[in-house]
């Protein structure tokens, strides 16, 4: 039972990291129709900036403010990089541009910091013991903050006038602008918000384990897959798909017969297989309904 709970908690931490990526992708996609896959590299870059200041000052507050500044800068850059694609309705080209931008950032990190892993916190990580399971403090912060933030975002998007504005920008940008909404500013704010959310995840990963130039990539790809499995317009589906993609591979690896010899390296393979099955069975999202086309 202890082992089961420990796996569940560990998967929950990873799942929440992916969830925040998926939610950021969802928000950006909601306002611009573009999948901003460079978020993985942006999260990594922000985490490295946190690391640099923390090494010099040893202050969490100073490092946090510096990292936040970088996240906002990347939000601004992302908006100006991808806005043209939104306006020209070249969303797939936008995806490719975002992918290239992400790879450029990762290469830049590789050049500046080299590829060896960097730890923000030295020594043993602080752990919270719940009796039946244990969780690291950064892990606990990730899960609690992640779930609270997701619930707030889901509530704002689905139940408030701000959420309706957000969704209507994708539907008809010109009409929303004619109602006095500065659609460009809303898009830029969402880009910044997405970068801050993923930057937070990047820092938490750095505190929980170690920093590597490519650490954000697998997470953003998993978040990206979760977004499409769950349904690009259904935040409820995205949340379920994220935990599905995090929990199922983890349990397959830990509970499969020993002769199958599954290890952590199989995880992305399982994620891809689950994605394939889900997309073939439910191409429009986990909770989609059949709609008759006219």
């Amino acid at each position, binding site marked *: 039972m202890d082992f089961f709970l420990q796996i569940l908690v560990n998967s929950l931490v990873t799942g929440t990291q992916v969830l925040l990526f998926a939610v950021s992708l969802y928000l950006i996609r909601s306002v611009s129709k573009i999948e901003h896959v460079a978020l993985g590299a942006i999260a990594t870059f922000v985490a490295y900036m946190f690391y640099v200041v923390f090494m010099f000052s040893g202050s969490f507050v100073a490092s946090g403010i510096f990292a936040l500044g970088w996240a906002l800068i990347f939000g601004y850059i992302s908006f100006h990089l991808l806005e043209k694609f939104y306006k020209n309705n070249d969303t797939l080209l936008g995806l490719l*541009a975002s992918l*290239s931008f992400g790879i450029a950032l990762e290469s830049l990190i590789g050049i500046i910091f080299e590829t060896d892993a960097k730890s923000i916190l030295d020594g043993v990580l602080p752990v919270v013991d719940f009796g039946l399971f244990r969780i690291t403090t950064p892990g606990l912060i990730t899960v609690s903050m992640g779930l609270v933030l997701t619930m707030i975002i889901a509530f704002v998007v689905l139940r408030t006038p701000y959420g309706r504005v957000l969704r209507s920008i994708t539907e008809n940008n010109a009409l929303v602008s004619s109602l006095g909404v500065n659609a460009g500013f809303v898009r830029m704010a969402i880009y910044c918000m997405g970068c801050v959310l993923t930057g937070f995840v990047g820092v938490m990963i750095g505190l929980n384990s170690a920093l590597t130039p490519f650490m954000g990539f697998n997470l953003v790809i998993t978040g990206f897959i979760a977004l*499409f499995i769950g349904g690009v317009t259904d935040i409820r589906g995205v949340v379920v798909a994220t935990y599905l993609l995090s929990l199922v591979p983890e349990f397959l690896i830990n509970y499969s017969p020993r002769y199958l010899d599954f290890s952590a*390296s199989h995880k992305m393979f399982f994620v891809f297989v689950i*994605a*394939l099955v889900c*997309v073939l069975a439910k191409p429009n999202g986990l909770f989609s309904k059949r709609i008759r086309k006219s």
Partner: protein
Amino acid sequence: MGYYFSVLIKIFISFIQAVGAHLTMSQAGIFFLAIPVSYSFMGYSLAILQKKFLLGFGLAFCGSLLSYLYVRVSHESFTVLTAASIVGFEAFLKSFSDLTGGVLGISGIMRPGFMKALPDIVLVSGCLMLTLVLIENLIFKAPFGRALRGLKESETLLESMSISANKIGTVVICLASLLSGIAGSLEALRIQFLDPTFGGFPNLILIASIAILSMKPSVRTLVLSTLFVVLLPEVLRFFSFNPSQMGHMRMLVYSIMLVILIRNLSGKFTSAQRIV
């Protein structure tokens, strides 16, 4: 001399692979991002099934199973799945080490008798490239080429002319997988070593750069863009960079170039612009 042969082979191989990307991404407007998967799949098939080349080439068609997805899912989901397949396949190569050698890869891949030395590979890949130049030229002039361009413009219009958009898409994805597979096998024979990083996103960026640079339905543009993209990072060799950073430098140059190219191309090839 070996360096020049290697660069020549790289140009030829990149062209062979880029023909597939040119037809899918630039002409048909299908964002088939699993090109590196076919490349790596065929390289590994060749290494594992040494001396059974026909079986290896047959397996290259397995990569084209992805074309089934094109028919089944939406365009966006297809793009996502093909991008995810790169990560999935790399994880497969790392995980199933009994078959693929895991992270250590497979070394000492034997070359067939007619490709023992580098000049032989130059000759074979050069001949293949010339053949493909002719074939692609014919495709552009044939009804199939027009249907490909039509697919990018409007699927509905294509269907109204009794041409199946799914059929055209499936054929072009199969073709791109096959060509990418052939390129992967030639590269595997050149370097005689494979590891999970073979192919992957660096390969996608390289080929996508070529394909996007040559948006026009012209073989000459494709040849020129291949030359430009492959030779561009070679300039970096004349600077004294740390060898461990060369790979990152190369990727940085490619990706920045790709971002600039894509931004400049955006809006220029949409039908709305031309109608106006």
